[in-house]
């Protein structure tokens, strides 16, 4: 693909990430399906008073989010855009660091494969959860 098209996608994915990422952050804060907005009250000692049931990052809360189609699709979209944006970004940085036809080809392929792995792995989580996984 022509570099100009790649970069256009880079910019567009960037903007989408901005929107979706903001939503993502909202999902665990203002819009969280729980009245307890405490993010981090996990404790590694027994003196903790928390029940592990009410906070935004608690298992039940997170699974609830994952189970809604709306949030599930948002995460999947975000993941898609991020993977492209990031691995293309890495490709740019690396090919500027190691310029040359052969090295760049290698970098492009490595980035493609790595991107695919992350994408499949992340999608697996999202899709399984959407299909009612977890619990």
């Amino acid at each position, binding site marked *: 693909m*022509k*570099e100009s098209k790649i*970069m256009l996608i880079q910019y567009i994915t960037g903007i989408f990430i901005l929107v979706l990422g903001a939503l993502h952050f909202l999902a665990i804060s203002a819009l969280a399906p729980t009245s307890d907005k405490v993010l981090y009250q996990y404790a590694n000692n027994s003196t903790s008073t928390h029940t592990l049931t009410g906070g935004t990052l608690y298992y039940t809360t997170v699974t609830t989010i994952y189970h809604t189609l709306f949030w599930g699709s948002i995460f999947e979209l975000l993941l898609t855009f991020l993977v492209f944006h990031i691995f293309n970004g890495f490709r740019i940085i690396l090919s*500027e*660091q190691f310029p040359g036809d052969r090295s760049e080809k290698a970098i492009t392929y490595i980035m493609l494969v790595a991107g695919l792995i992350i994408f499949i792995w992340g999608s697996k989580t999202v899709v399984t959860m959407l299909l009612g996984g977890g619990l």
Partner: protein
Amino acid sequence: MELMLKGFGEVVKTVTLRVRRYDPEKKELPKYMEYKVPVQRGMTVLDGILYIKEHIDPSLAARYSCRMGICGSCAMIINNRERLACQTQILDLGKDLIKVDPMGNYDLVKDLVPDLTKLFRNHESIKPYIIRQEEKVTGEFLQLPEERELYSMFTECIMCGACLSACPTMATDELYLGPQALAQSFRYIADSRDIGFNERLNLLDSKHGVWRCHFAGACSDVCPKGIDPALAIQLLKGMLAKNVFVKYQQKPAKIGPDRKSILETAQS
């Protein structure tokens, strides 16, 4: 009125020039050497270097020619910033120790002399000439002053190469076309006489073309002629991005009034 040139022609103070030396024949790594130079008002760093060459250490090598900031020979890194040596007043630097390095991002030939092959090659590769069907010269192409303004700032590039030395992308990517060549391609594309956008497109849009600029702005910041290569590159990117959707059209300038009477007498 007589005070106008006060301090010219008399030694005001002595400064130390700390120059990075490298001699490929000596099999040593580059090292710094210090030279004490008496300074008069009006003395430039280039004058300082010439003083060293003539009076202290003749083996110091540097490029220079016009000594008026137009030939572009003498760009070097003075106090950590790319400048033209012949245009930098020693006293204006306001320091008693002046560090002089050769430009980076080029191979180093000797001392302050970089190998600018890369710069010239990149410049040549973007086809820096008017591209259009050869026509018989019967008069000038008409170009309004406003049209001229659209590219004329980039014609002032003296090919000193300072921008390539300052560009952080160039610092790692030696295949990058570099701000100088990209600004020149914009200069020709924006010239109303040229219709070569499509001929240059492939190179500009290649893996080491315009998109390797991430707008660090260092090129525009150091350019000793005040050219704004960063601007040219961003405008180019805009053109290329639009070109993905709507093909970019260049309308060639028209030929002006026929000047046969003066042009044809010449042929005889």
